[in-house]
């Protein structure tokens, strides 16, 4: 007979059973028993953040840069509401995560108790699923389900809300090996006949493009994507979320597509005759206006694990619902067995056309500038780290320059908030990345506006000795807002200028880290090298960059992909 243990201990034991090494959180009244149990053991390491939003972003970065489920622990009420931004961020990018939130005791629910909030109600639209545990006997199974749901199918955050009394109640602990749910059976294998149709269509293409997204990263399908692309000798473009899925330095790579994608990628998307979409969802920042994108002569194959992603914004000719690596393996097999061969001369002409578009050199910028160009900083970062760093970013111009100028050759190296576009994501996400990859070099590319949204996490970095390298592209503006105001609002820079910025060097030093201010282009490389030499220290590099620089190419909102503004 096993002894009865408390709900709090059960929760911690569940985390241990799931192989969770590291969780991110912040204590409070409703989770005190949980923290007490965490205190008594050593298997699950708890990282104390300075704000719950950061706990969730850190768990998110941890998940994105590894293949594990991220875990965050927050208290009831404000603890949970602070976490909502992080949860919504993870939801939009389909990140597997389990969030455990404390709740007021069961008998106090609904009575407007201290630090009470309707957690399940507030988070419902931004989680894959959520649970309120009402009986300690259901606790272990509920946590098992949470991990199962979060990590299978199209991944996403799952929240488990645990009232305080449940953490005190006792029961026997049994952790199920596996869980089956009659209402949740995600598809894995794609439809074989559809895959055959896709193979025929792919081989009939004269102007093909492979368009791959975050689904390739999340499902670890990079190997299969490379095999497919190499087998066919077709061009491949990655979305912002898919960077690293196909190596950026390979000659078949067209770079990123979309609002700030390359000229060649966007033109190829617009004018291809067969489009092979892999784990991507045709979102508004990627294809622009669907009306401008639509083209009767273009056939679309869409591989995705989520049926609701298919034909959502763009009508698809051959949908294949399934887990991307499984579908790609089958597709590669079909292509190899298929007697038809692709039209090599048409393909040659297509590559010629692509090379002409490439020659437009859409990412050029003034390399002779006397003021630091932000693009140059990212390029230098790439050189100094030899393309091997983990790079997180916040949201705005710096994010786009990072995506354009850091050539990601491996998946799970580029960590950014693509769907929700959450400023403040970069620093806490980098903490999670560093903890998941203790030996990795982690850079956070940010701007002076974004970084201030979670700057308090410099304190967490000090506590746990996280040697992040923060690249602050400081142009004294909310750059992307300023860019839109310049282009579309008659140069009226409404509230986009920051005229009371802190001295970032002093600020960083006050947190116990190293701060640098870099004002001349010739000092950029040296500063980066010096920073990366400081292996055990966080270095905040404040680069004073050109205030007027804009991100090009740009597809204005509501326009089509071929209607780019170029330099």
């Amino acid at each position, binding site marked *: 007979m096993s002894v009865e243990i408390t709900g709090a201990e059960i929760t911690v034991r569940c985390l241990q059973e799931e192989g969770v090494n590291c969780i991110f959180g912040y204590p409070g009244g409703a989770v005190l028993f949980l923290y007490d149990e965490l205190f008594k053991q050593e298997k699950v390491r708890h990282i104390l953040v300075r704000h719950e939003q950061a706990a969730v972003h850190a768990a998110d970065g941890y998940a994105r840069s590894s293949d594990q489920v991220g875990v965050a622990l927050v208290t009831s009420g404000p603890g949970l509401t602070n976490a909502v931004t992080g949860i919504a961020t993870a939801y939009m990018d389909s990140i597997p995560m389990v969030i455990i939130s404390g709740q007021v005791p069961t008998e106090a629910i609904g009575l407007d108790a201290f630090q009470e909030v309707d957690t399940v109600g507030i988070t*419902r*639209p931004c989680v*894959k699923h959520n649970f309120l545990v009402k009986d300690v006997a259901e606790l272990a199974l509920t946590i098992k389900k949470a991990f199962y749901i979060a990590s299978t199918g199209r991944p996403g955050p799952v929240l488990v809300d645990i009232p305080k009394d449940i953490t005190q109640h006792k029961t026997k602990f049994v952790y199920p090996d596996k869980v089956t*749910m*009659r209402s949740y059976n995600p598809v894995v294998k794609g439809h074989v006949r559809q895959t055959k149709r896709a193979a025929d269509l792919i081989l009939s293409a004269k102007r093909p493009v492979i368009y791959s997204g975050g689904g390739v990263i999340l499902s670890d399908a990079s190997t299969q994507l490379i095999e497919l692309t190499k087998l066919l000798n077709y061009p491949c473009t990655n979305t912002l979320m898919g960077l690293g899925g196909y190596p950026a330095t390979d000659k078949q790579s067209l770079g990123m597509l979309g609002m700030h994608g390359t000229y060649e990628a966007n033109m190829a998307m617009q004018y291809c005759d067969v489009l092979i979409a892999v784990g991507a969802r045709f979102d508004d920042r990627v294809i622009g206006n669907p009306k401008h994108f639509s083209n009767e002569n273009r056939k679309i194959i869409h591989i995705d694990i989520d*049926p*609701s992603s298919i*034909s959502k914004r763009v009508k698809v000719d051959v949908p294949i619902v399934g887990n991307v690596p499984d579908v790609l393996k089958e597709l590669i097999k079909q292509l190899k067995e298929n007697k038809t061969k692709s039209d090599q001369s048409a393909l040659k002409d297509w590559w010629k056309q692509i090379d002409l578009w490439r020659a437009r050199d859409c990412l050029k910028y003034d390399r002779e500038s006397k003021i630091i160009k932000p693009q140059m900083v990212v390029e230098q970062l790439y050189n100094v780290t030899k393309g091997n760093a983990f790079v997180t970013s916040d949201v705005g111009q710096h994010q786009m320059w990072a995506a354009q100028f850091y050539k990601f050759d491996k998946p799970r190296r580029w960590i950014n908030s693509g769907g929700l576009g959450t400023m403040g994501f970069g620093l806490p996400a980098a903490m999670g990345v560093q903890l998941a990859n203790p030996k990795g070099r982690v850079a956070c590319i940010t701007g002076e506006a974004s970084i201030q949204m979670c700057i308090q996490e410099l304190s967490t970095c000090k506590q746990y000795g996280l040697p992040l390298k923060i690249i602050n592209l400081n142009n004294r503006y909310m750059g992307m807002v300023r860019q839109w105001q310049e282009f579309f609002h008659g140069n009226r820079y409404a509230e986009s200028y920051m005229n009371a910025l802190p001295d970032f060097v002093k600020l960083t030093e006050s947190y116990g880290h190293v701060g640098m201010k870099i004002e001349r282009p010739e000092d950029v490389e040296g500063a980066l090298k010096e920073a990366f030499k400081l292996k055990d220290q966080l270095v905040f590099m404040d680069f004073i960059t050109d205030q007027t620089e804009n991100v090009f190419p740009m597809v204005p909102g509501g326009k089509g992909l071929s209607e780019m503004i170029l330099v």
Partner: protein
Amino acid sequence: MRHIISLLMENEAGALSRVAGLFSARGYNIESLSVAPTEDPTLSRMTLVTVGSDEVVEQVTKHLNKLIEVVKVVDLNDGCHIERELMLVKVRAQGQDREEIKRLVEIFRGCIIDVTDKSYTIELTGTSSKLDAFLETMEKSAVLETVRTGASGVGRGDWILKV
């Protein structure tokens, strides 16, 4: 176009709010919704009437299927189906009107289930359009109160929605 969607879902607290929340979050219309437990008390059966283009309704069913607590979804418009709705309507019934209303109720195969000296309460079942038709035959000012359940639907013959 009007679609009638039938679904089976776990009979759990909060499941209904997930369905309602999905519709409001994605801007879909709910014309009516009716839900109750089935012969298996762990399952609820819901009938949902929505209006939208085929593309929109396809997305609706896909998203309903994605909800973790939803076990099965069918669009009853995909095949032959039967639908019924229950209406309770309280009408002013005085003098000569009393006989006239009684005759109308008989024509619509309804029944009067509560009577006072001033009013009748009528129970009527049928398709939603039949109930609409009944209300149209009544003089507007005579209708004191209407309560409708929203449509319930079921596939014909062998078409069975079961786990």
